[in-house]
């Protein structure tokens, strides 16, 4: 096995220093995805900087105005169980609470969840030198692609794996990133990037940057919901998920965010569906229209056409549940 150092950090500054000090160092939070990568020989870091021990990154906090802050090290289990989140940001609590399995949720951090790498089997198998690993093909195109994307594909086609990202984008969350050049705050919707920008990455996390916090603006006046379709109820990712957050004004929708998971290379804003909702009252008709519009631009691959139908059904269902 590739030998590496394990360095424990107790502050974010220390973590950044440890990262910068040795080339090819990477961060480890819960380690669920990092350890998988090590075991599958997908990465060979010189140093793992363990940030599980960094203090101050594991708080959940709601301020007087209702703005939510979640430390990057808060586990999925804690997000799911938090009373404030369950009340005001139910889509987030649900997405985290249904992810994976109880054991994994107790270890996995929300930061790591947003930054986990795709699960496409070609990416995960060392023997397939795919475009996400610096090769020149996406094996899914001519291969077995039932779980791959219908939106935002090319030149790679893996679905973005994070369940938490879907409601966070819908809630208009932003991410606080601490790096060598200082601290920046990025809207979650802009943090994730398509593979045509760089097929080897899914986001714009900079060299040496640490995600410290997730900020979610107050949900006052917003209605939201989340749902997903699963082949297997536990120990698995959904095949499609959808989060919807709307604000109403006098009986009709003033603004809406509809975000799809597991169908695109990033958490996917279904903007046409959002447009279909705005100005309409929530109800069966607008839900149907949103469902239909949500698949605008879908480009199914050979084996994943079913995801198109699932998106329509799910968006319809989630919007209708808000009425």
């Amino acid at each position, binding site marked *: *096995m590739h030998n590496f150092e394990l360095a424990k950090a107790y502050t974010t500054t220390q973590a950044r220093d440890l990262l910068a000090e040795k080339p090819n160092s990477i961060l480890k939070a819960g380690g669920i995805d990092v350890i998988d990568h090590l075991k599958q*020989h997908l990465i060979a870091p010189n140093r793992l900087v363990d940030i599980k021990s960094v203090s101050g990154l594991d708080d959940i906090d709601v301020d007087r105005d209702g703005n939510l802050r979640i430390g990057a090290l808060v586990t999925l289990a804690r997000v799911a169980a938090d009373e404030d989140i369950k009340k005001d940001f139910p889509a987030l609590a649900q997405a985290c609470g249904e992810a994976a*399995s109880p054991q994994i949720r107790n270890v996995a951090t929300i930061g790591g969840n947003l930054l986990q790498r795709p*699960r496409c*089997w*070609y990416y995960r*198998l060392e*023997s*397939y030198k795919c475009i996400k690993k610096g090769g020149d093909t996406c*094996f899914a195109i*001519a*291969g*077995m692609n*039932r*779980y791959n994307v219908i939106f935002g594909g090319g030149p790679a086609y893996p679905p973005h794996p994070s369940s938490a990202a879907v409601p966070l984008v819908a809630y208009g969350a932003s991410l606080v990133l601490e790096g060598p050049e200082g601290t920046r705050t990025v809207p979650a919707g802009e943090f994730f990037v398509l593979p045509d920008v760089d097929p080897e990455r899914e986001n714009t996390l900079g060299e040496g940057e640490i995600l410290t916090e997730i900020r979610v603006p107050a949900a006052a006046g917003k209605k939201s919901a989340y749902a997903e*379709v*699963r*082949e*297997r*109820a*536990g*120990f*698995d990712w959904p*095949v499609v998920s959808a989060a919807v957050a709307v604000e109403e004004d006098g009986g009709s929708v003033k603004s809406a965010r509809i975000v799809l998971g597991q169908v695109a290379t990033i958490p996917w804003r279904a903007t046409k569906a959002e447009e279909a909702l705005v100005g309409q009252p929530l109800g069966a008709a607008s839900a149907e229209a949103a469902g239909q519009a949500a698949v605008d631009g879908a480009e199914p691959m050979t*084996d*994943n056409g*079913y995801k198109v*139908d*699932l998106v329509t*059904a*799910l968006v*319809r*269902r989630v919007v209708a549940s808000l009425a």
Partner: protein
Amino acid sequence: MPQEDKAQEPSVTFKVKAGLPSDPQEMEVHAAEGDLKPWDLESLPGFQHMGKPYPRFDGPLKVTGRARYTYDIKLPGMLYGRMVGATIPAGTIVSIDTTKAEALPGVKAVWSTESKKVRFAGQDVAAVAAVSPEVAMDAARLVEVTYEEKPFIHELRAAMEDGAPLVFTEGEAPGGEDQRVRGNVAGPRRGGRGNVAAGFAQAAATIESTYYLPVHTHSCLETHGVVAHWEGEQLTVYSSTQGVYATREGLAEALETDRKNVRVICEHMGGGFGSKLSPSATGSAFAMVACKLAKKAGAPVKLMLDRHQEQLCTGNAPSAQITVKIGAKKDGTLTAVEYTSYGSAGVAGGAGTAGPANTLYANNPNLKVEEYAVFTNTGPSAPLRAPGHSQGAFALESAMDELAEKLGIDPLELRKKNESSPIRAAEYDPGVKAIGWERRNKKAGDTPGPKKRGIGMANGNWYVFANPNVTVEVKIHRDGSVELFSGSQDIGTGFRTAMAVVAAEELGIAPTDITSHVGDTQYPQGPSSGGSVTTNSVAPAVRLAANEAKKKLFEVAAKALDADPGELKSEGGKVFVAADPARALSFKEAASKMPGEVIDCSADRKTQYETFRRDLAGTQFAEVEVDTETGEVRVLKMVSVNDCGFPVNSLTAKNQVIGAMIQGVSWALLEDRIVDPNVGTMVNPNLEAYKILSPKDMFEAESILVPQANLGNNTSVAGLGEPPIVPTLGAVANAIYNATGARLRELPMTPDRVLAALAEAEGRA
């Protein structure tokens, strides 16, 4: 499986009451001389332990992590072995260069194959042994193999196409010289009776459908592996195996040493399901390789496969494409069944699925069966819990449902109408009651809302197999403690507990008073655990050995009680005069009278004789909920009704049945070995994307056992490990149909397939 209907002469005749308690049948059986009068219906009410629920003895060890599995064995100076598998699906090995691997510090031995042909990815190529698993892994990665690649074929249906690359050139295919092989297709093996053309001509209704099941892997939680330890010529092998004796035989032959030099031990194992019947595995010789590495290195070697390797080379259940045509009269009486099956066992033969078609509904006069084996460049299959029967029953029992729909008959009534087994005939009603059959939709899919519930059922069958080559040893010590010894291993059925129950019944003490020692070739020989034979092969020898020991105990007790040994009885921990129970000794007191230190009795199993039924019946009911908008299926409840002769330990017996239903639901809804068509390697060689049912998917599972005196041996015990998985796939598919009106003819029944079937059903309506 050896099976004899009649003991060889000389024999003793016993008149017995056989069959179901509700319908006792007089029967005459011919047991070998020296055998005991079999337990029959008259014994049933008097049983003290047989059929009662006993927690498995090793339960506490397992849940506290103290049970020692092969994986847990650690010997001083032990090295770690690792196999290197072929990375291509077809071609020739040009060279294997192990220099770099050997040069790595910590590497103590390497092995490489002499065979040059590669027919599946994962086939043995080389192996290493090193001081740690990490060094072994690094060394394995340093082995350089050069291949000349050849075109390959990855899947059953593609392999059947004209012009598909050939897995075997002429004369190379497994399955014997006289089989016909065209392209990748061997067969057919034919079977049947009567004249199907004439039968279909009489039919008022006929249906014909084709069903498909992908390859399913055993996915044992403990992967295959051994620890090999030489001391001079003496070899001890700890193995996660279903057959310690079979492993000993295979290894002794491969290593060209005497059997007496080889000891194989399997104290506990984490699942086999048929994949651990070979000395190594059907697609790997890792155990033999580990022994060779250990010899070379002069140190013990532990070689466990990892999950990825496990998925490639340790066997699987064949995929199958099955076409069933059934004709019936208006009242449902079957007039003809035509059954054609193409199965792929990868590079192996033996992909038959016709067991259920050959056995169920035996009153149907006209049956035509054709079974073909299709070769693909994938790992060889291995028996998997009732080999071929789950696939076959899925097709046949789905077709029966389709026929019922066409005839407008309740699917249960259709089965009852054509039932040929008196046992299954008696199993329907308890199942109907437990599932609430009357709650099913009168018209499929006829419920409001997107989430629809439905109930379905299916039948399954298995056979009474027995292995006669069994010896058991029972010891009663002077302090009254009792041990029993059987070489057979506990595959997870609770074998060691069940054997204690049998001995306890005979000795008149509690099962927990007995210590069972199993899974070691130092103990008397016992069968491999395959074919549902272990319990019913060993139990009769346990009873005989316990009976011998009891007779000796009675001899010493008789003196103390001033009675004749023939007057004594033992029950409830006492030895007493049957006619005067007050004249009694405790079992311990009786033992203390023995002149020596131990009463030590061995007994051979007597030959199997007439059985009430040669087949085992089973029927299952499933209730599901289908989300018709998302295609998600959740199983809510399953009920299995089975017979196994007399159950020995009802708790572990029901465990078997519930486990089989879980494995079956997993097969029905999730499991799918997926191979890339362009590269030819499995893309989900893990337990993440190769999906097995998770705890969250669990359903309410109920096992109902129907005890019956089946005879065949002195305990009337028959097998149970395999049969309860046979009906599950069909029961789930039929329940989905009842819920939605959509017929799922292809597994696994994932949302995409459910939605497609719903769309098809809508198109029909």
